[in-house]
């Protein structure tokens, strides 16, 4: 074929077959709202989001150190905060590890269930812990219920300051917030099948929170200052030990079902014996307070049997539930008990319940 002939060849002017028309895109309006349950505990802070199937937990502790005492390489893979003045705060679980290295005690933003006024850095550290746990909330309308203890019946400290500080932290992070009683949150989490009637008892580190609800209405709530720290401190005092040592033995070895007799080491056996004694005292004290408070403050007849739900980190040792059941059976309660059971996850029940309430209150609105 000559060059001229080649030029004459013209491609036919037939349009290529067009691809099939894509279906019209219906833009689904993304829900900008995000719902959060935030459990602000003495030992752990726990965050549940409605758009995630996992709950985030971190230890509510920090360790202030000078940046001269530690190199940046040592801080790699460590959760820490650094100030412009050169102060370094190691936060969360890592604070415990470094506390042992430096032979220092960790600082706790909260003490006995409330924000500690002794720790001047507490509010800053809490803000950063909460910001980290809540995660990305950019361009979202965030609604959060956060836990607060009830007023204690055996102590005079008010929860007002504590409530307002957490409110201010969440406000600064751009989160709509409301405080909700910790004991009630357990019932929101665990008692939907009983139509939100029940007795929720949260054995935390700093306080024990109790709420009695009847069909979603709070009938009674209170807290006591005796819980996990009370047990540790009482054991430490009675055996002249450091509380940290007792906590360590408790977390690693305590089994209330097995008892202490099988422990070979005599010193540890003594600690475990004391732990059992004070656990039993704690449960007995709490049940007596439930009876007294109900008798004094509740003036309605509850004709249904109520479930008692046990939750919180202090209720985690094996055998706790059985010890509680056996103790409660020795008391004459002013209401019927249908069953005593443990929360499905005692560490996350409060955050879970707070999320239930936030969703119930806001997700139906637009």
């Amino acid at each position, binding site marked *: 074929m000559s060059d001229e002939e080649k030029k004459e060849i013209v491609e036919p002017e037939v349009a290529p077959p067009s691809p099939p028309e894509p279906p019209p895109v219906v833009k689904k309006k993304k829900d900008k709202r995000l719902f959060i349950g935030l459990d602000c505990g003495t030992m752990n802070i726990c965050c549940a989001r409605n758009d995630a199937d996992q*709950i*985030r937990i*971190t230890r509510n502790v920090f360790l202030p150190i000078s940046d001269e005492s530690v190199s940046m390489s040592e801080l790699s893979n460590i959760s820490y905060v650094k100030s412009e003045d050169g102060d370094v705060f190691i936060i969360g679980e890592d604070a415990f590890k470094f506390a042992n290295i430096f032979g220092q005690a960790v600082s706790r933003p909260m003490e006995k269930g409330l924000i500690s006024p002794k720790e001047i850095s507490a509010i800053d550290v809490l803000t950063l812990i909460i910001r*980290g746990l809540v995660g990305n909330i950019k361009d979202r309308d965030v609604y959060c219920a956060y836990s607060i203890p009830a007023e204690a019946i055996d102590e005079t400290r008010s929860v007002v300051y504590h409530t307002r500080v957490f409110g201010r932290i969440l406000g600064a992070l751009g989160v709509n917030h409301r405080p909700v009683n910790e004991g009630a949150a357990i019932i929101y989490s665990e008692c939907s099948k009983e139509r*939100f009637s029940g007795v929720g008892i949260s054995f935390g580190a700093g306080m024990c929170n109790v709420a009695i609800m009847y*069909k979603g209405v709070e009938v009674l709530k209170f807290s006591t200052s005796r819980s996990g720290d009370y047990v540790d401190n009482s054991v430490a005092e009675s055996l002249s030990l450091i509380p940290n040592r007792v906590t360590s033995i408790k977390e690693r070895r305590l089994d209330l079902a097995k008892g202490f007799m099988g422990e070979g080491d005599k010193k540890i056996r003594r600690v475990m014996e004391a732990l059992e004694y004070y656990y039993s005292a704690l449960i007995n004290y709490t049940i007596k307070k439930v009876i007294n408070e109900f008798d004094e403050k509740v003036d309605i007849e509850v004709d249904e049997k109520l479930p008692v739900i046990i939750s919180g980190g202090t209720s985690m040792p094996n055998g706790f539930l059985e010890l509680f059941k056996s103790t409660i059976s020795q008391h004459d309660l002013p209401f019927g008990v249908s069953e005593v059971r443990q929360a499905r*996850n005692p560490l996350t029940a409060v955050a*879970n319940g707070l999320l*239930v309430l936030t969703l119930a209150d806001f997700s*139906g609105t637009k």
Partner: protein
Amino acid sequence: MILIIKKAGFFLTLTGLKPFRTPAEVDIRRTDLNVLRLELKRYGITEYEIIGEPFSEVKPPKRKSQKNPLAEKVDAIYKMMQQMLGKEPTVEHHYHSAVQTLDRLIEEKFDEPDVEEFIPEIDVSDLKEVDLEYRIEEGEDVTDAAEELRKLKGDS
């Protein structure tokens, strides 16, 4: 069973019932009486009737403490308002509510501080933060529980 509230001037939102204004006669056959009584008490409504079961009328709250200066102030204000407005039921209702609240606070030994405790502004701009490490626990789908709670609260 019917709840009768004769006093005018209340707007009530009670569990299991549509919001209503008083005076009103409301069908409460599907309402839990214990919850209803509790909620009416919280609203400060002490004078009502429930037809369908024996139910004695609740007396107005009695003062537990007459010596508290706050209680005396409320008494004085109430007397002044009574002179100005006569026996207006709404005023009486607010008075009863105030008395109940006051008594509760006195009972709980709650002392309102003269000055609220100082809370600093939240400012973490000077802090450089590294990613927070956290543990993960399995979450739950709470949609059904939330829906049940919403129904129970009567919002649906």
